[in-house]
């Protein structure tokens, strides 16, 4: 199950403009250096070359749950990134355009009306560089969403006769 997966990478992982938006305060956070290393792996060209070179195995079933939300519902720290991405496509979650989030060959479960952080976690638990304050974020029923996704997957596997 891919949830807001960076399948095709993100335009924000590119030097220099994207990274400046991802790390507006430079190297001042404890994680920043490691995150910068990770961004090389998130560049779109790198991810697409990887996908071309590695057809995915047929055996697991793939499910994708993507996310995007209107600009006014993006949490404040993600807004400058969402604005930059909106010039590529307004349907983005603050880190990824909607069309970059689907695994090839996957069952598309849908698009959650959420930004990249709020689809999976409480803002308080997020990295300070990514999170907004809780009161500023739209509430999103992420527990219900993930449970529905798991129910769907269980149903799909049971229909195929896949035993645990």
């Amino acid at each position, binding site marked *: 199950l891919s949830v807001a997966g960076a399948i095709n990478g993100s*335009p*924000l992982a*590119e*030097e220099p*403009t*994207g990274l400046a938006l991802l790390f507006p305060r430079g190297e001042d956070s404890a994680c920043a250096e490691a995150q910068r290393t990770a961004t090389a792996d998130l*560049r*779109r*060209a790198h991810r*697409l*070359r990887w*996908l*071309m*070179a590695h057809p995915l195995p047929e055996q697991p079933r793939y499910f994708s749950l993507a996310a995007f939300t209107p600009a006014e519902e993006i949490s404040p720290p993600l807004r400058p990134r969402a604005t*930059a*991405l909106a*010039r*590529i*496509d307004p349907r983005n979650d603050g880190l990824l355009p909607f*069309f970059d989030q*689907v695994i090839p060959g996957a069952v*598309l479960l849908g698009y959650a009306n959420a930004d990249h952080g709020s689809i999976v976690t409480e803002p308080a638990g997020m990295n300070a560089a990514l999170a907004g304050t809780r009161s500023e974020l739209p509430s999103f029923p992420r527990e219900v969403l993930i449970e529905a996704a798991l129910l769907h997957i269980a149903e799909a596997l049971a229909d195929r006769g896949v035993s645990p």
Partner: protein
Amino acid sequence: VIALLGLALGLASCATPLLTYRSTDIPPVQLTVVGQPSVHDGRARFRTVFCELAARQGPPGVDCERFLVRFAAEPVVTHPAPLPPHDPRMRLLLVPGGLAECFEDAELYPEAVPRLRSLGYAVSTVRVSGRSSSAYNARRIAAAVARTPPTPDGWLVLAGYSKGVQDILEFLVSYPTLAARVHAVVSIAGSVNGSPVANRYTFVYEAFANWPARACPPGDRGVAVDLQREPRLNWLARHRLPGHVRYFSIASVAPEEEVARGMTPLDLPLSYVDPLNDGQLLFYDQLVPGSELLGYVRADHWAVALPLQERWPVFAGNSAGAHFPRDLMFEAIVLRTAEALRDST
């Protein structure tokens, strides 16, 4: 309108693009509606055909490697098959792009068409409405196909350029009885998924939409809206292309300095979305679902099919002084299409 256009251009030019990759960094990518068939890779064979043809009859010094852009992961052929022969059993109907009717100079392949006719091909151009929607033009194409003599021993091929491609696709779906006569469709820089440029600048077209122009009847005035992303992708989501037709796609991309001066206002916002574009369309929006990808040519959106650079040297010329051998490319497309149709029968 001029003030609004100026403002839009100003805003477009002040943002630094996020994406800066080159064609060799990235494999061919298709933006497709979920459920549509994927494109298959025919680049290696088309490169052989194009380069062989260029060596035989191109002007001296034609560098096919320059004109056929390499994207990542292009297959390599170690023992290429020879150049296929011409096959005049193939009948070609050309479908021009949006607004072509409005400009006499916007003539598709003015050198290749007479040459193909001299080789025995039947080639004609469908007179579609320059300012109309694809649904409107589908009717024109249907009438042209209905008038075309049947091809019991040959093939009927529709070759569309730019918006002409989406006109053809609408024809295939809306007129299935006539579509049954079609064997193949070639998309040349086709606006298959529409263009973000149309989303941005439709207001400019709308401001002039009611202006009378003798050479440019208004039709249903739907050309600009119909080139937007959402109508095209929604159309593709609602319709399945007929399976009996073979589809071929060739896309165009040009470096910024090789884009026509007249296209610069369109190229700036487009380059922000993706640096690999032809001044009007992104590389990943030009592929027909389920088609054979022939390749990517190094030409802007006009140079790939129209003689505008020769006829409007300032407006359609580019700062690098680059030219593209469009007629040679078109002949290579005809050769590859005929070869594929022969193989499939």
